Structure formats: C-alpha cells, structure tokens
C-alpha cells in the first residue's frame, strides 16, 4: 500500500485533494476531519461507500459532489454491502483481466454514522465482515441520528438527552447503555478493529493505515463530536474530543484478530467525566440534584471499562 505521511496539522489541512472542502456539513462537524484523515492516509485508489446520513446528504447533492474518487450511496443500511459488492467485482474483473488499470492498488472503504452502524445497518455490516471482504468500515459515531434532528440510537450513552429519549420532569434522558460495537466487531474475528478519535490524529492516521493495509474486513469506531446535537460551540470540536478521550469516555484502543487488545492512548491526567458532561448541552440536566446519580453511574462504568481494557491488554488473550 502507498502510505501517505502527513507531518503536521498545517500539512494535514491542505493535504487532501480527493475530498473537497466544499460540502454542507455543519461548521465544527468532526465527520469531515475523519474522512479527510482516511483519505490522507493512502495514495491508493479508493472506492468509498456511504450509508444515508449526515455525511452522505452533505457531500453529494446533485449536481455537486465533494468526492474526487469513486463513491456510492445506496441506502441507510447497506454501505458495507455496496463496498463488498464492489470488492467482489474488483476480484472478478482482476481475474478476468477486464480492469482498465489492473496493477493500481484499490482500497474499499465504507462510512456510516452510528445510526446506520449500530442500528439499521448492523446486519449488513455483520454479514460483510463474516464473509471476509477486503474492506474497511468506519463508523462516524456521533451517538445520535443527527441527520434527522437528533434522535436516540443504540450508541447514545446513558443520560444523554435526545429528541426521542428526552430529559424532562420525570426523565434523565436515555436509560440504556451504549452498545459496545467495538467488542461486537472484534467478536466477528475481524483482523483489525479499533476505536479512534480525531484529536489524536496521528494515532488515528496509523490506525487507518493499519486497517487499509490489513487484508480482510476491518472496523473502526471513531468519535465524531456533533456540535449541533451535543450542543457545544462549533469552535470547540477538538476540545470536546480531548475531554472525551481524557475522561476515558472514549478510550482509544485496537483489537487484533479478535483478541489482542492494545491501548493506544493513555491520558497523563485522567479527568473526571463531569468535565466532559458539563461541556455539552445534552447532559445539562444531569447536574440537577435528582440526576446526580446518573453522573455517578457513568463514572463508575467508565472506571470499570478502563480496568477491563487494561486487564485485557495485560492478559494478551
């Protein structure tokens, strides 16, 4: 694979010519940072499939397109299968000798939000990974259906307010835990699975490159801070993401071949989760006295998960 190395943020901000800056994503949306980073990670040809969602509706509104590479969107749930179908066609045509440029390396990538990854497209993703297609699936996890105005998904964390799991007089927001998609995809035996964040962009670039280099299906969950639905100022995207990784709300780690777990980022000072929650409007109600117990629950679950990840890493099983 032709790895592209981007040395610093200045270079990063100008390095990509395959994803145009002209798109309709909200100012401060992390989606475009993550997409640019993926496309910056390689010089190989890219076929990109995208589920219906913020990224899709913001980058391919006829007669415009932000994609200067092959791109396809079918529906809300099936980007993984679109990429898988294209990958199967690539293999068939390579064998039959009908490709225009048979020697140029091609990578297949699918993007989906958490709604399409954790919920409606779960089966399609699972099927494509089980079949072993050579592709990388990247979830842009903003923990809600942002494209339709902020409804709960199975990725929405406990206590968050969404329009369909509202905080109100008798409710503290979402009651259920966030689905552990990383563990689920690792359990498929996928050769490379990771959770990454755009504030730790060098780690993210390496993770993307690892996934693209790895033969077989790879899954990466990326935290994509949502200025609109998480309710923070558009200029604070990276600051909020820093809080996400440094409170360990979003631990950064990889799982190789379904079992070998490596923690990729250890905060020097682990911050209390309150700092992360307090910075976002979607958690505002948790600071009422009657909801304090939810913050305690969230902190406890973070601590337990971190302990678990560290033990898994040590155990090397």
């Amino acid at each position, binding site marked *: 694979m032709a790895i592209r190395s981007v040395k610093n943020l200045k270079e990063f901000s100008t390095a990509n010519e395959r994803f145009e800056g002209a798109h309709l994503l909200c100012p401060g949306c992390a989606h475009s940072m993550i997409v640019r980073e993926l496309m910056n990670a390689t010089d190989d040809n890219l076929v990109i499939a995208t589920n219906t969602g913020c990224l899709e509706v913001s980058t*391919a509104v*006829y007669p415009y397109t932000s994609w*200067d590479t092959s*791109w396809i969107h*079918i529906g809300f749930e099936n980007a993984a299968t679109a990429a898988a179908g*294209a990958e*199967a066609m690539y293999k068939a*045509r390579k064998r039959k000798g*009908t490709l225009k440029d048979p020697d140029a390396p091609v990578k297949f990538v699918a993007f989906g939000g958490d709604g399409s990854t954790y919920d409606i497209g779960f089966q*399609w993703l699972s099927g494509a990974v089980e079949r072993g297609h050579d592709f990388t699936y990247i979830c842009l996890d903003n923990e809600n259906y942002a494209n339709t105005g902020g409804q709960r998904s199975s990725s929405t964390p406990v206590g968050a307010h969404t329009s369909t799991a509202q905080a109100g007089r008798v409710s503290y927001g979402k009651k259920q835990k966030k689905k552990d998609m990383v563990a689920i995809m690792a359990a498929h035996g996928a050769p490379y699975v990771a959770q990454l964040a755009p504030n730790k962009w060098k780690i993210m670039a390496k993770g993307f490159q690892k996934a693209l280099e790895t033969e077989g299906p790879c899954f990466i969950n990326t935290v994509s801070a949502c200025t609109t639905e998480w309710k923070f100022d558009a200029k604070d995207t990276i600051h909020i993401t820093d809080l996400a990784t440094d409170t360990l709300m979003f631990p950064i780690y990889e799982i190789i071949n379904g079992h070998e777990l490596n923690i990729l980022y250890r905060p020097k000072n682990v911050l209390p989760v309150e700092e992360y929650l307090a910075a976002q409007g979607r958690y505002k109600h948790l600071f009422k006295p009657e909801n304090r117990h939810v913050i305690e629950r969230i902190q406890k679950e973070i601590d337990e998960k971190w302990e678990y990840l560290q033990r898994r890493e040590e155990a090397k099983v």
Partner: protein
Amino acid sequence: MAEKMELKSTEVWDGNYAAAQALRQAQVDVVAAYPITPSTPIVETYGSFVANGYIDGEFVMVESEHAAMSGCVGAAAAGGRVATATSSQGFMLMIEVLYQASGMRLPIVLNVVNRAIASPLNVRGDHGDMYAGRDSGWVQLDAFNAQEAYDLNLCAFKIGEDINVRLPVMVHQDGFVTSHTAQNVHPLSDDEAYAFIGDYKPVDEMLDFSKPVTYGAQTEEDWHYEHKAKQHRALMDSYVVIDRVFEAFEKKTGRKYKRLETYMMEDAEVAILALGTTVETSILAAKQLREEEGIKAGVVAPRVIRPFPLNELRAALAGIKCVAALDRSCPMGAMGALYNETCGALATIPAEQRPLVTNFIYGLGGRDFAVDEAKRIFREQKGHADVGHITTHVQQFSGLRGPKLGFYESKRS
C-alpha cells in the same frame, strides 16, 4: 478460465436449472444471492457450477435478499455483469434496493420465481411478488415455461446492458409450475450463447479512477422530478432495443418472441389476457373450444410487462367482443392490475371498437388453474358478448371454495 460445459441440443431442465445455465453462459462477474423457495435451486445450481470450475466470477452468498440486491448494486457500479434470483418475501425485502438499482441505471438481471406473499405464509406460485415490483423501474420479462426462462435470461443481459437502455431487467417465471417442472429445453452452446450476449461494456464504472463517479446522489425538488422522468423515458423507449434483441434471438434460434404474445386472435371474438403458465393453459382451452364448440377464443399475454405494450394490447383487443383479464394477485380493494392496464389501453380507442372487459382473480397461493376453468371463463365471456353486456360481477374470484365472490355490477347503458 472457466471450464466450458458440453450441452445436448435437447436437455431436460426445469425453469430454475434453465435460468442457472443461462447465468453460467453469460459469464456473470458477480452473483450476490440469498436462497428462498422456489428460486433456491437457481442459486444452488450456480453454486455447483462455482464449485466445479465452470464460473470465473465471484459468488457472494449474503445474509439477506436486501443485501443480495445491495451487493448487486455495488458490484454493477464497479463495472461488470451482475445477476441474482429471488422469490416472494425475499423479493419484498429487496424492493427498497430494486428502486435504487433502476434509479442508478445499473443493468442487473434478477430472476423472480413468482410466489405468493404472506400472510398467511405460502410457498406456492402466484404473482403477488411480481405485482409488488411493478413500479420499480425495471424492464420486466415473463417466461411461460422453462425454455423461455432460459431464452429470456440471455435476452435480458443484452437488453439491460444496451447503452440505450442501461436498466435492470427481471425475468419472471411461475414458482413450481415452471421452476420445478422438467421440460425439454434447447440450449445454445456456451460459445453461441456468450457471443449472442457479448462482452460487458462498462459505463461510468467505479473502478476507472481516471474518471471518478458519484453514484446515488441526493436530489430534492429541484432535480428529482427530472431524473425520474428521464428514467421513465428510458424504460418507455427500451421497447426499441427489446424488439431488436428479440429479432436477433429469433435469427439465432428460430424462437420468436414479441412484447405482446397473441394466440388465435386474428378472428377472435372473446379472449383471455393472462401471464405465466396460465397462458399455455388458456391456449389449450381456446383450441378445444374452437374445435368442440365453435367459440372463437383467443389469448393475449404480455411477454414484456414493463415497458407495458399498450399499443400492441390495444391493437390486439380492438374489435373483439369481450376479454377477461386474469390477475394472479389479490388487488386488495381494487380491480386487478392487468384489468386496469387493459381498460387503460382500451380507453384510448373509439368506444365502438372496445370490448367488454371483465376481471378474474385466480390461482392465489398456488391454487390450480386448469383447462376446464379456462374454458368456463371463455364460455362466460361468450355469453357477455352475445347479449352485449356483462351479465356477472365485473370482478370475480375463480376457483375459490365457498360462496361465489364478485364485485361491481356492470351497467347496461
């Protein structure tokens, strides 16, 4: 290179096997599929071809029919020949993606082995699935027997992949009655069949990176309407290519197909309009009635369901006295779709040339439709013709147990 298969000039194949052989001969690049009764043997047979070296392409067994069509769309956009098969509930699950395939103008071939739609669950043949997909933007061909299932698959690739069409194509056949009934089939040799279809010519392919393409864009009120109108036009105009392909096929094999098949219609007084295996049943009934009772009966059958052969249907029915449109799908609160298409076609000719039109719902969930019943329907139409008005309900249920069921009275004047 895929191994070639030596075929006899006459093989004994059922409709499923015939379709699978046609897919093999077309050297499809990607088949993404999911099994469902009664189309499963197409996928299984194809799987056996894969396992024994007769296929160079990829065979992707996915986790649902929705994924099957999604994989087909991704594969087709990547610039190669693509096909699959399904039935009934699987077809229903696919429907979302059927519209996306046609909207993206991807020439995929889908074998639909027609079967009833639940609930109640039923694995037998009717046209419920076919009817559910009729607005999906696909060219739709209907095979009445195993030979036609083979022939129309070869034609389907050539039609759909034509640069002037570039639309997906369905080949329908009746579940079990065609799909599981072994009949004599005259195949082409592998070389002849492939030469007839020709190499796939990629158009706007995702694997040509010198010209990046965006598939599945968003359009709102500014462009959506124009796109759909253009797509409709492509489907409407595809008849030119369909006629050309049928002509080329006739030259090659001597087997003649028309967008609207007509049997004994030259002097017919009454007619049955039907699809699938019912066509052959009705032809047999018409022949017997002509010999035994002197009733001038004829049969009309859309070979091409989309684009609908409206001009041809109008021409075939103008001047006859009475036609019964037979729908093997329950319209649920309306007249049958074939009835409505027929009336629509006839509304465009002068009133004095218009026949009476009745509607029969029949054969749901695999209920047998035999020659005797077809004869009874012909006789009844003859009765209407003789008195000049419909003497029964306009819509009736044929072959239903229990009390007679009918809807809408006809008006005498």
